[in-house]
């Protein structure tokens, strides 16, 4: 066995140009973009499913699709968005593209494993979606697949769902192994851990969560499939099993899963804001400790998803307190980002707009999250549209907004062209308004009696459901300027040059797009990735007036 190296392959056998994106490339940059485009395709599919949901919910009766179909749609929507869009894109796309640059390496630690991890995704996704067309229907038990419901709905669809999620979980684990090895072992000589760009710490923390928690989901789904195929009774009360144990095992992964979706986004924002504010990232060390605190706490809070499930009171109390405490390291990060902006020279471009909207949205989602962490509060709103509103503020208002911000920020590096700012701002306005219009009313709906995962509801809730559906329509429309921008820019966009943002991190100290080996010559040693800013009191000659010099007392 030899160590894989992207330049080991014979020329002529390796596709050139755009064809290489359809090949088993070992280049982390190609793989990163494969993840990005593949993920975005699944985003569109998941979004179409969301369109079905919101169309159904525009009227209080179940009159758009059959109720079975509706349950299939909501199951596929959640599963696709989580496992085929957000997790692969924030980890696989941006992680794979950027981490080797940040540690000063030519590629990830295990390029072949990297390619395998990516190539598990399209077949798993196709398998999942094909289950919709199978006789007997796709899985209908939600992305959470709680037994006994998942044992009584059509078995073939549920098994396909399980297989697909197992493949996707495996892909995620392979990625996690790669990131841990790359960040810890492949750093360029002279580069210390505490000199790494914050995104590396975010990916390290995320990958630790991936490696520790995803396998538990795998084991759980294997047991669930035994129940379906072999008629064992792990989670079947009629055969002596315990459904709450499934929930514990499921959420042991699925709670860290939300951090797996959001921590890389935190890292990306930490890279974007300093560049455009022309200021160092505020509080580097506390940012690192916060990430590690979130990783540790994230592993011990899972049962806050089970406050009404029949857990003992002492357990509910423990999880309330542990969950509440996650707000502290998370809050620190948000204050640090605000402090990064304060006193800067902020360019109000699309990347910044999406990043700031992320702060706005995620703070809102975080506040409802702290509320949900309190047992008595949750007892009323668990499994209602309040929760749906909450988590969409986190995963969409959070992770997806950051994905968009990152797209505007790094597209010039990926392609050598700058995305059009007018289309970008249009995309931003439509997305921001549409998103808030769609998900803000859902909090009120949940507080007032609308449960989740329903195709029909009390007619008193009609007006706010319709407002929400209009918001969803706006979100759908917002995709148009984005797609137009991406395609038109690729064809004839404005050239970006090596470093259009005058940034300091290593990926900008090379051409756009970068060469195969990332840099011509040695990898640059960047010990201060956030070395922006002038000392307070420094006079800016190009903005001085005469009286400033007099007033400052400096001669």
């Amino acid at each position, binding site marked *: 066995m030899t160590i894989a190296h992207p330049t080991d392959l014979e020329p002529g056998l390796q596709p050139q140009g755009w064809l290489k994106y359809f090949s088993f490339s070992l280049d982390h940059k190609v793989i990163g973009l494969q993840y990005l485009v593949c993920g975005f395709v699944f985003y569109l599919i998941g979004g179409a499913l969301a369109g079905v949901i919101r169309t159904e919910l525009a009227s209080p009766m179940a009159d758009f699709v059959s109720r079975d179909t509706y349950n299939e749609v909501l199951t596929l929507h959640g599963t696709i968005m989580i496992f085929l869009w957000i997790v692969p894109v924030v980890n696989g796309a941006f992680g794979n593209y950027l981490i080797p640059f940040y540690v000063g390496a030519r590629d990830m630690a295990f390029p072949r494993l990297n390619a395998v991890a990516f190539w598990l995704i399209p077949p798993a996704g196709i398998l999942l979606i094909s289950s919709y067309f199978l006789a007997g229907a796709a899985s209908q038990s939600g992305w959470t697949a*709680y037994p006994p419901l998942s044992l009584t709905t059509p078995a073939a669809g549920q098994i396909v769902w399980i297989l697909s999620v197992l493949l996707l979980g495996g892909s995620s684990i392979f990625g996690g192994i790669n990131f841990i090895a790359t960040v810890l072992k492949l750093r360029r000589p002279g580069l210390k851990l505490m000199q790494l760009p914050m995104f590396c710490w975010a990916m390290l923390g995320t990958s630790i969560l991936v490696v520790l928690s995803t396998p538990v989901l795998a084991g759980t789904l294997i047991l669930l499939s035994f129940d379906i195929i072999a008629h064992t009774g792990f989670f079947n009360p009629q055969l002596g099993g315990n459904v709450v144990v499934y929930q514990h095992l499921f959420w042991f992964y699925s709670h860290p899963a939300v951090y797996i979706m959001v921590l890389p986004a935190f890292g990306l924002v930490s890279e974007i804001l300093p560049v455009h504010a022309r200021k160092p990232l505020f509080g580097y060390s506390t940012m690192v400790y916060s990430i590690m605190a979130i990783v540790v706490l994230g592993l011990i809070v899972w049962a806050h998803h089970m406050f*009404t499930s029949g857990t003992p009171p002492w357990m509910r109390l423990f999880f309330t307190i542990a969950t509440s405490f996650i707000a502290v390291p998370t809050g620190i990060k948000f204050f640090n980002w605000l402090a990064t902006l304060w006193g800067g020279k902020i360019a109000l471009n699309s990347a910044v707009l999406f990043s700031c909207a992320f702060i706005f949205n995620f703070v809102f989602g975080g506040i409802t999250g702290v509320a949900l962490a309190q047992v008595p509060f949750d*007892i009323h709103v668990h499994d209602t549209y309040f929760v749906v509103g909450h988590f969409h503020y986190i995963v969409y208002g959070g992770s997806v907004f950051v994905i968009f911000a990152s797209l505007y920020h790094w597209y010039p590096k990926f392609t050598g062209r700058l995305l059009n700012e007018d289309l970008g701002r249009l995309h931003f306005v439509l997305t921001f308004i549409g998103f808030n219009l769609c998900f803000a009313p859902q909090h009120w709906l949940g507080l007032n009696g609308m449960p989740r995962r329903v195709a029909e509801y009390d007619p008193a809730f009609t007006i706010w459901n319709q407002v929400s559906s209009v918001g969803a329509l706006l979100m759908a429309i917002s995709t148009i300027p984005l797609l137009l921008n991406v395609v038109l820019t690729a064809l004839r966009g404005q050239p970006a040059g090596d470093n259009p943002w005058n940034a300091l991190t290593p990926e900008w100290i090379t051409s756009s797009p970068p060469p195969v080996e990332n840099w011509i010559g040695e990898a640059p040693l960047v010990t201060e990735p956030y070395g922006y800013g002038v*000392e307070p009191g420094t006079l800016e000659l190009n903005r001085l007036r005469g009286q400033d010099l007099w007033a400052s007392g400096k001669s």
Partner: protein
Amino acid sequence: MAVPTALITLLVGMVLTLAGLWVGHNVNLLPVDASTNAPVYDALFEVLFSIGTVLFLGITGLLIYSLVRFRRRPGDSGDGLAIEGNLQLEIVWTAIPAVVVLFVGIYSYDIYERMGGMASFHDHAAMPAMAEQVSFDTSETDATSAERIWGGIGQAGASAPALPVEVTAMQFAFIFHYPEAGITAGELHVPLGQQVQLRMEAKDVIHAFWVPQFRLKQDVIPGQPTLLTFTATKVGSYPIVCAELCGPYHGGMRSTVVVHEPEAFADWMRSNAPPTLAAAPGSPIA
């Protein structure tokens, strides 16, 4: 003379707190409260809402202020201030959220206790074992497991014994059985002001029993009985909503809880009681 930052921060903080308190007190986002539990819940909600408003307005304000005040002017290619950290500030904004979060946690523990959340599940009086209602083919037939309560909200405070009602949830309906009176109904009828204890179990998949106006919810689980205790405080009819995905008709799985004045409730019990056999003179009565 430039206003000291500390003073500005203090003033802004005061305005925000007042705004938060006002919003929490005056903006009503919840449905009518109809159980002893609901005002307790609403008090917690008001606190959370106020704190949330303060935080949200504060951070949004800071964000918008920064974007306006510190935006890059055209032609300016210089950098901002090279501030990499400020230990005192970081300590302050770690300590304050930690204290707030701790306070919220302790306060909500108090609320939870007042709701009956910490009450034991087994101090209820006359609650017959549900063994006869468990009709599926389980090998768990011994008495201890049939009476075991797996979770829920017990009876808070030792007052009069609660009215026991057995709730069975199935795809896609709730059935209510009054063991003492032998009544079985499709709606839940309860008297005003008296504690009611629901002993719940599902027949097929997980369901959940939720009355928004009572602010109470509990999963109803096959093979694992759960408990929900409450006291209704307002006469009227309120929806019972199933709040756990249980199949295609999950959205239509609802019932009603009707809260009666005590005399009206007694009437209802009488008129719905199963007919008793009239004893013929001289014949033995079972």
